[in-house]
């Protein structure tokens, strides 16, 4: 609360010193009340309420992230379980992971011939790495004791997967998911600025073109709050699925 107060104070100070080119907190608040009083209006494709924009962004993140989970988690399991796959793919992952996901956007535009799939593609690329890597690390860190139990019992690969690997990897996997969603939410804003259409990132860029700085500040808060909620939800999910003995 104190931190927030300090931020607003600093903001007011900057606003005053720049001669109102950055709006004051109060003006922004009034604008926010107006924006949020009708978040779901539609005046054509380029003028929609903030609610639609957020939902559009969330939808892209969900689809891109979902596809990444679908591919990344099984891939992580395979890479963690089989040493030769890990030797094969680790250099590749190390090479591709540091690349800004936005660098993949043109490839997406080229291949999918559309802004929306290209944005989803970018999200897919950026969220797949944390999931692959964390899942693989989780599989490699399954305590040897549990695997010895599996060996003594001669469990089938399926039983090993469902009764031993999956539960013990779950916490690592959820860490990967959390990192992935966090990154995805960061990247979507930038991707939408480039692709346009509808979405919170596009909204920021559009308001910049309209020189409506108040809305940009509102968007910053909206992006922050949505990110916070996503993170909180995933932390909650992670704690619900983490077992006492696995945490240590």
């Amino acid at each position, binding site marked *: 609360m104190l931190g927030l107060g300090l931020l607003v104070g600093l903001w007011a100070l900057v606003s005053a010193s720049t001669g109102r080119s950055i709006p004051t907190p109060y003006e922004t608040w009034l604008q926010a009340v107006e924006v949020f009083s009708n978040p779901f209006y539609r005046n054509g494709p380029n003028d929609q309420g903030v609610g639609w924009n957020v939902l559009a962004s969330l939808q892209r993140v969900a689809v891109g992230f979902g596809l990444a989970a679908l591919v990344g988690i099984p891939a992580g399991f395979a890479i963690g379980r089989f040493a030769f796959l890990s030797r094969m793919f680790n250099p590749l992952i190390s090479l591709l992971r540091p690349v800004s996901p936005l660098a993949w956007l043109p490839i997406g535009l080229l291949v999918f011939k559309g802004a929306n799939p290209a944005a989803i593609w970018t999200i897919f690329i950026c969220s797949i790495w944390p999931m692959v890597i964390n899942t693989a690390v989780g599989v490699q860190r399954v305590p040897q*004791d*549990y695997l*010895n*139990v599996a*060996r*003594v*019992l*001669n*469990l089938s690969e399926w*039983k090993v997967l469902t*009764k*031993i690997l999956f*539960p*013990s990897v779950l916490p690592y996997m959820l860490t990967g998911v959390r990192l992935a969603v966090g990154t995805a939410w960061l990247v979507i804003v930038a991707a939408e600025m480039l692709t346009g259409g509808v979405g919170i990132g596009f909204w920021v860029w559009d308001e910049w073109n309209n020189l409506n700085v108040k809305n940009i500040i509102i968007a910053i808060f909206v992006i922050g709050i949505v990110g916070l909620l996503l993170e909180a939800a995933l932390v909650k999910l992670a704690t619900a699925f983490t*077992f*006492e*003995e*696995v945490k240590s």
Partner: protein
Amino acid sequence: MNASTHPSYSTKFIEVQGVEQTFRTAKGLFPALRDIDLTIAKGEFVALIGHSGCGKSTLLNLIAGLTTPTNGALLCANKEIKGPGPERAVVFQNHSLLPWLTCFDNIYLAVERVFGAREGKAQLKARTDAALALVGLTHAGQKRPGEISGGMKQRVGIARALSMEPQVLLMDEPFGALDALTRAKLQDELLEIVARTHSTVVMVTHDVDEAVLLSDKIVMMTNGPAATIGEVLHVDLPRPRSRVELAEDARYVNYRKAVIDFLYTRQAHVEKAA
């Protein structure tokens, strides 16, 4: 199950022949075991004792089939031990229960694997309940390992191993992590269970009293690296054994002294050699 029906291996149920185990480490090859020859009869209780790092657990893992020897051969019931299997159940040092399953489910996993092909669900459940009852934990079946004490966890581990009706029970310092009172209680329980089930047991321990109290044969190992069997002591005490009566029994005291003499006089652990 009956020893008399298999006379060919009643005295040589497990055979360890000229086994040598060398590990590849970052510092080069590490010779853990050499020239290990050992036979274990059906229904025999054998303790492996020695200082830490002498390769007791390595030998147990070899019998379990979790590792394969660099040289030599291991046989169980005249068949070469090629890998781990439920007929050689292992009770691990740190219980190794799966924390996300209840005690019941932990045992059920084993029971289902061994008997699932032949028996129905009701029978498998009955077997699991029986195993829990055997170690006196019927009430804890629906608890998770995290919710019960260390001694109870170890008992579930033993129940899991016994539920598979193994030909051999391999125990790697099963009571090492427990306090003295709990350990004594579980040792007594184990004595009773083994007397009832006529199990063949190989147990790794560093506790002299435990070894003398439980075993028919104590295998004493020399210090590593390249450890081997120093001496085998046959413990000829009548069963059932009671720790209270044995405490003053002259034979018990002599056996105990023989093991202590081996461990602390002839194989005194020389730290500076390491």
